């Protein structure tokens, strides 16, 4: 490191105005988690609940179809021009973490199309428990697992479970059917998450995803405060 008095015109190569927490434009929320845990259902729920109060858009990631984007369009949770589908090839993981180019293109396209955009949801293609978003792509990330996968999932850990900003355990309505102990899931999650929040929800019983929507609003508020 150069001495302090030389730092006046030192250009920090890592001083990236687009870095997490410094980025302007819409809040980008990543929705990750295994296949079938309810990511698309959650995206749809958030669109329904927040769509009236926020200028928002969604990016979906699929292997080669546009299944998730089509689902959102079919259920008309958002106008078509607010939904962009990214095809991830054989590696959904790469597209959200290691080379995020395709997803950045989609986000930038949506931002250009809707200059007032406040919130972009990025749903990852379903992947395993180690999948997580690069903070070059999103500002905060939600990891969605479900009760049907067994109550040992939080204990198994992985960056999605341990490091996500919000862990959502979905499909609590199925707990009696699969013999999953919700208290065990809550306790195991708390043990590995170092104080970060976990929500146990059922999108079947609460299609508005009330608690998750409240968390997203909170993220928007704290970012607005940061930029103020």
């Amino acid at each position: 490191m150069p001495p302090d008095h030389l730092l006046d015109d030192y250009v920090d190569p890592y001083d990236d105005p687009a870095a997490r927490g410094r980025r302007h434009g819409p809040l980008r929320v990543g929705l990750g988690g295994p296949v079938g845990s309810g990511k698309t259902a959650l995206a749809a729920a958030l669109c329904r609940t927040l769509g009236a109060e926020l200028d928002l858009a969604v990016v979906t990631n699929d292997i080669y179809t546009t299944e998730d984007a089509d689902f959102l369009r079919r259920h008309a949770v958002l106008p078509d021009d607010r939904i962009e589908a990214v095809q991830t090839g054989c590696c959904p993981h790469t597209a959200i973490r290691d080379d995020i180019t395709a997803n950045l293109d989609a986000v930038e396209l949506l931002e250009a199309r809707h200059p007032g955009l406040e919130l972009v949801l990025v749903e990852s293609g379903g992947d395993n428990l180690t999948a997580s978003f690069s903070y070059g792509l999103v500002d905060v990330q939600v990891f969605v697992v479900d009760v049907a996968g067994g109550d040992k999932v939080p204990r198994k850990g992985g960056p999605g479970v341990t490091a996500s900003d919000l862990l959502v355990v979905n499909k609590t309505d199925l707990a009696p059917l699969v013999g999953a102990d919700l208290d065990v899931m809550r306790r195991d999650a708390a043990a590995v998450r170092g104080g970060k929040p976990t929500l146990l929800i059922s999108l079947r019983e609460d299609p508005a995803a009330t608690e998750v929507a409240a968390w997203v609003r909170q993220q928007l508020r704290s970012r607005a405060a940061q930029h103020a």
Partner: protein
Amino acid sequence: MTAALLALADSRLPAGGHTHSGGVEQAIVAGLVHDPRSLEVFLRRRLVTSGAVAAGAAAAAAREGGGAPADRRAGWARIDAETDARTPSPALRRASRQQGRGLVRVGRRAWPAAVWDDLPDRPHHPLALGVAAVAAGLGPDDAARAAAYLAVTGPATAAQRLLAMDPITVATVTARLGDEVDRVAAATSTTSTGISSRTPPGTSPGTSTGVSTGTTDGDGRDPDWLPADTDPLLDLLAEVHADRGDRYFAS
């Protein structure tokens, strides 16, 4: 032969490198690496220490490739033992041999050559890299370059995953280390001038005085002249890491 070098240094070469973090996982746990700047510091340190050792061994191994089969077998066994001597951490020895074996597996089929049969079983990774360079028609310089480059890119990718860093930032970190990678590779490859600086004071290439073993022929081919700048911090991190029950990477 540039294409072969690119293939050898490409992280997509399926040799198992992606399961190793080069110490960065434990460095993150210990709080030493947490942002782009601390990552760059860590990578620079790794490059000039274990990276230099690996580059020197890879270059030496590639130089042995031209010899008669019996000579190169003996040469490679010696380099393997010298690499052991420069790798005090059992965990790092395991990691190196695991990656060496992986590279031999893919190298044998990608660049078929008789030289593969002269390697010891489960060779150290730099040794396998040097032999892969021979098999692919590359020279010691290239072997050193690949080793030095991989010393940086492996842990850089691991850090990006573990810290969920912006991949463009991590690409910037690696790009900024480019000159240093070249410098380390040049300094550790004896076809360049650098190795002579490793000659003990009072000697110069071409003379054989003052070298501890008394067996050095002075042309830089003796493994005693291989860089030995191993880093105790990396050894320590590797040993602590090996005992963890919750690690993502094998090393």
